[in-house]
C-alpha cells in the first residue's frame, strides 16, 4: 500500500500535467478557430476550381495537354502531409499507416518518390526504403503560400518533362472536430472526366481561344490545390490536438479523483488505527485498576 506522502506527490504531479494539457488545449482551440474559419471561407473556391477545370477540359478533349496527359505510371511521386508537432492523437500515425499501405500497393508497378511535408512525415520516411526527393518541415503552417508555390513549380516541371507520370497527395482533410478524413488525391494528371456531354449541350463561346482559357486556369491549378491540402491538414491538426488535449485533461481529472479517494481511505484507516490503539491503551490501564 502506498504511503500518504507518495500519494500526495503523485496527485501533485498529475495536477501539473493537467495544467499543461489544459493550457495546450486553450492554445489549440484558438488556433483551431482561426484555421477553421479560413478553411470554411476558402472552401467555395477550392471546391469550384477543380470542378471548373474538369468541366472546361472536358469540353475541349485535349488528352495531349501537358497537365492532362495520362500515361502508364512508371514513376510516381507521393506528397505526404503531416504535422510538425505531436500530441495530436492519432492524427499522424493513422495517416502514415495509410501512406505505407498505399506505397506498398504501388511499389510493384512503379518507381516511387516521396515528398514528406511536416516533421513527423520527414522522420518517418528517413527510415523507409523509399527515395525522398525533397522535404519540408519546421514552421510549415506559417509558410503555406511559399511552400505551395515552390512545390507546384517543381511538380509542374517534373510532370511536363515526363520525369514523373503521376503525382498523388495524401493528407488529412478537415471534417469535424471529431476526426479528420484521410484523403488521397491524384494531383497530376488532372482528372478529366470523360462522361458524355448532355444532349442539349451547346458548343460554348471561348474568349480568347479555348486553349488559352484552359491554360490560364490550369496555371493556377497546382498551387491552388496544394494550398487547399495544406490548409485542410492544418485545420484538422489543430482540431485533433484540441480533442487530444481535452481527453488528456479529462483523464487527469479522473485519475486525480481516484487517487484522492484512495488517499482519503488510507488517511481514514490510519486515524482509525490510532484511535484503536489509544482506546486499547486506556482500557488496559483501567483494568490494571490504577
Amino acid at each position, binding site marked *: 500500500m502506498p504511503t500518504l506522502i507518495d500519494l500526495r506527490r503523485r496527485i501533485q504531479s498529475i495536477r501539473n500535467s493537467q495544467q499543461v494539457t489544459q493550457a495546450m488545449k486553450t492554445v489549440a482551440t484558438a488556433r483551431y478557430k482561426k484555421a477553421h474559419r479560413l478553411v470554411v*471561407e*476558402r472552401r*467555395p*473556391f477550392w471546391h*469550384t*476550381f477543380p470542378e*471548373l477545370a474538369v*468541366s*472546361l477540359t472536358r*469540353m475541349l478533349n485535349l488528352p495531349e495537354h501537358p497537365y492532362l496527359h495520362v500515361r502508364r505510371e512508371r514513376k510516381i511521386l507521393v506528397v505526404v502531409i503531416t504535422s510538425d508537432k505531436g500530441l495530436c492523437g492519432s492524427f499522424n500515425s493513422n495517416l502514415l499507416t495509410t501512406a505505407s499501405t498505399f506505397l506498398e500497393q504501388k511499389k510493384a508497378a512503379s518507381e516511387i518518390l516521396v515528398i514528406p511535408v511536416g516533421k513527423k512525415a520527414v522522420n518517418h520516411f528517413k527510415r523507409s526504403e523509399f527515395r525522398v526527393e525533397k522535404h519540408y518541415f519546421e514552421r510549415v503552417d506559417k509558410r503555406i*503560400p*511559399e511552400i505551395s*508555390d515552390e512545390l507546384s513549380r517543381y511538380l509542374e516541371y517534373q510532370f511536363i518533362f515526363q520525369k514523373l507520370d503521376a503525382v498523388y497527395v495524401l493528407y488529412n482533410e478537415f471534417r469535424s472536430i471529431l476526426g479528420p478524413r484521410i484523403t488521397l488525391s491524384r494531383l497530376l494528371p488532372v482528372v478529366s472526366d470523360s462522361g458524355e456531354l448532355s444532349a442539349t449541350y*451547346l*458548343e*460554348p*463561346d*471561348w*474568349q*480568347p481561344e*479555348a486553349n*488559352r*482559357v484552359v491554360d*490560364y*486556369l490550369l496555371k*493556377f491549378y497546382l498551387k*491552388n490545390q496544394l*494550398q487547399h491540402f495544406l490548409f485542410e491538414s492544418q485545420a484538422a491538426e489543430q482540431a485533433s490536438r484540441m480533442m487530444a488535449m481535452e481527453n488528456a485533461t479529462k483523464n487527469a481529472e479522473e485519475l486525480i479523483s481516484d487517487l484522492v479517494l484512495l488517499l482519503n481511505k488510507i488517511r481514514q484507516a490510519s486515524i482509525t488505527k490510532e484511535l484503536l490503539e489509544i482506546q486499547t491503551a486506556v482500557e488496559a490501564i483501567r483494568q490494571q485498576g490504577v
Partner: protein
Amino acid sequence: MSAEIPAAFHLRVISPERLLVEAEVIEVQVPGLDGYLGIWPGHRPLNACLGSGEIIYRTTDNREEKVPVKGGIIQVENDRILVLTGMGDDD
C-alpha cells in the same frame, strides 16, 4: 426556344479568400480582356478570361451592385454564371 429562356441567372463570384457574391441576377456586365461583356438571361454558353475592372450586376429585385475583380475566369451556362477571380494575387 424563347420559352426556355430563364428569367434570371444564378451568379456566383468566388475569390481564393471567400465567396464574394451569390445572388439571383437578371443582368451582368463583366470586364473581358477586350472590354466589357454584357450578359443577359439566355446568353449562349461562354468561357472567357477576365481583365481587371468591376463586375456590375442587377439583382432580381432591381438593385445594381458592383464588385471589383482582377483577372479570372467566367463560365456561363444555361442559368448559372460562375466567376473565379484573384487566383494570382493571393500572397
